[in-house]
């Protein structure tokens, strides 16, 4: 990273830290969405951007993480900082099963993607019928007004903002470290040509398994945060394919396999989303947002197929390219 990049990053971090002082409730909640999608995009990027494994069922890990932590808190009073271990454990186990089935039997590309969707779907049906998790009627967390309890993640928007900011920053640093590590190089080799990587001694199955379990673990953390922020979970939304797709959009639009891609993608997508929501509200035309949002995505994908960030980075002299 060059000096300009470090300076730019420092300014960005300072602005993000000061955001609650500068922004009102609405813009802060928009920024929370940006950070959330940047974070889950980073987690998904490990699998697809780094290791080249297409997952369209990442909502499975977020849903599992959320349900486990929320369930432990609701039924046994176990706080989220303890519950997060069980949540991550459950998601890692699910990721390991999906990964082993896919990689051991050489399912690749769309076939692997279908497997990830299938796991998400039958988990949804399972949770629809599981009374402990509230079944299809959903699971609700108790909400207390005027409380700021970080230990139990009970509090206002500002507290959740700093938690998701820390998570997004942590995921960024972790991914940067991983990309520079031997494992990161192995992932890039597998992404480019798995057979060639295997031929030169890369432990392909092991590396892919690490990618899927690490990605699942990080996504589960997002699920825990999400459950405690929104205080409700429904199988139909927690495990929805649509939610999985949402997670993939930020890194794809921002720049697959780049560190800043998910963040830039989240800023662009959430920003566009809010802009078109405003237009829809002003013109009183429902669905206007979806039409323009789709068109905007189409234009971005057509004219910047490698994502927006590599193009911006080159223009600004930050020079982060897709690894």
């Amino acid at each position: 990273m060059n000096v300009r990049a470090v300076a730019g990053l420092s300014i960005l971090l300072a602005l993000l830290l000061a955001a609650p002082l500068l922004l009102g409730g609405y813009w802060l909640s928009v920024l929370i969405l940006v950070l959330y999608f940047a974070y889950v995009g980073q987690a998904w990027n490990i699998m697809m951007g780094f290791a080249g494994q297409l997952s369209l069922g990442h909502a499975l890990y977020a849903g599992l993480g959320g349900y486990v932590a929320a369930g432990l808190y609701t039924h046994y009073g176990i706080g989220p900082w303890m519950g997060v271990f069980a949540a991550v454990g459950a998601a890692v186990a699910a990721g390991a099963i999906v990964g082993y089935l896919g990689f051991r039997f050489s399912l690749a590309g769309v076939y692997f993607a279908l497997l990830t969707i299938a796991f998400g779907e039958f988990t949804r049906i399972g949770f629809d019928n599981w009374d402990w998790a509230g079944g299809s009627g959903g699971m609700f967390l108790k909400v207390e007004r005027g409380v700021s309890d970080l230990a139990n993640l009970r509090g206002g928007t500002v507290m959740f903002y700093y938690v998701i900011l820390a998570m997004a920053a942590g995921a960024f640093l972790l991914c940067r470290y991983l990309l520079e590590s031997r494992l990161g190089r192995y992932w890039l080799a597998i992404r480019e040509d798995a057979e060639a990587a295997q031929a030169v001694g890369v432990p392909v199955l092991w590396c892919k398994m690490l990618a899927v379990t690490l990605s699942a673990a990080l996504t589960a953390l997002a699920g825990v945060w999400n459950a405690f922020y929104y205080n409700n979970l429904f199988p139909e939304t927690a495990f929805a394919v649509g939610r999985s797709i949402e997670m993939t959009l930020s890194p794809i639009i921002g720049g697959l396999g780049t560190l800043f891609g998910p963040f830039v993608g989240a800023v662009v997508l959430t920003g566009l989303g809010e802009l078109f929501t405003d237009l829809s509200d002003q013109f009183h035309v429902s669905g206007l947002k979806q039409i323009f949002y789709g068109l905007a995505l189409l234009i971005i994908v057509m004219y910047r197929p490698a994502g927006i960030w590599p193009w911006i980075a080159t223009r600004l002299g930050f020079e982060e390219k897709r690894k």
Partner: protein
Amino acid sequence: MTNRIKFTRRSFGRAVAGASLLSAPMPLRYALGQAPAAVKVALLLPTSGGQAQIGQACKRGADVANLVFADMKLPVKLEIMNYDTETKPDVARTQAEKAIEAGANMLVGAFDSGQSIAIAQVAEQRGVPFIVNIAAAPQLTEQGYKFIVRNFPTAPMLIGGAFELHKEIFKAAGQTPKTAVLLSINDTFGTSMIGGIKAMFPKFKMPYEIVETISYDAATKDLSVEIAKAKATKADMLMPVCRLNDAKLMIQEMVKQRWEPMIVMNPGSPGLYEQDFLKTMGKYGDYHISNVPWLDPKSAMTKSLEKHHLAKFPNDQLDLNGGFTFEAMLIAAQACLSAKSTKSDALMSALRGLKVDQHVMIGGPIQFDAKGQNVNIAASAIQNLKRKPTVVMPKASAEADLVFPMPGWADKRRT
């Protein structure tokens, strides 16, 4: 020196506005004079996304609210700000924040429990009253929220009300089915309803036995196997928990397989009373019963609502979605009149003490208990008669006599 009066476009506009106000009809002028400073009510509904159709039906009820208030000489006019939640809880939350920053004095919404809970949290944190128009999850009013009121029955209230009504219907008809079959869509709503029905059924000591529960996929294109299976039980009554498209498939298949139970009576689900169902099914859509909360046809306010709804949306049926959303607006208006202020605490205090005798949905006066739940909403039985959902129970609100058992598919009464 010239002494000409300048007459600009701006002064012309002012003159026109002044003249309009002076020439406004008396009740409206009275209303404008009595209302506290502009009351901003943010209406948060899923007008796009998976629940768009229902969200828009809800919105239509609010769109004519001010016209009905003027009709009923209610001295209040709401400034309704519309926000689309896109059928997503995260969007619902940001839209609620946006509405509050835009100066909303009260929030209304959001048809769905997940979205409503997301809004409720913002309402609690920012101390802005939130009126739930439609959402059945009991937890909404069981969480100890201080700034929420709900004018919609909880899921147990819906099912319990339907069971009580079944007994009344059988008594009025003089015939009681001995067996019933539950036919249910297996989506979140269907699964939740079936769970509730099974849990509550023993407590109500119903005169019939549920001999079979059959579920089907939400994306089904064919219900022939399920109907054959239901027919084979020889049940006297079919209780479908359905949505719109599967309701059509179900009746088509029943006609095809010539299965004629005593009645098709849903225990609190959409589908059978919907405009599209009635239009598509023609004569086969008649005589089915839905146990859902409904508009009271005897209420003067309902008549006014129907009149304005018909004038503004001639192609759309006014149903419970529009009715409950209108009532949410009515509650906001009454709270505003009672509080004589737009301050949150005053409005919330007014909401807690509210008693609205004249409203549109069947039931007692709108009043909230300590948790913010209106417990006076009554169940009703709607029977499709002459392609129109018609109230047949409770007797006090009935606009036609109950037809039970339903005429066979080839009966001459079906025209």
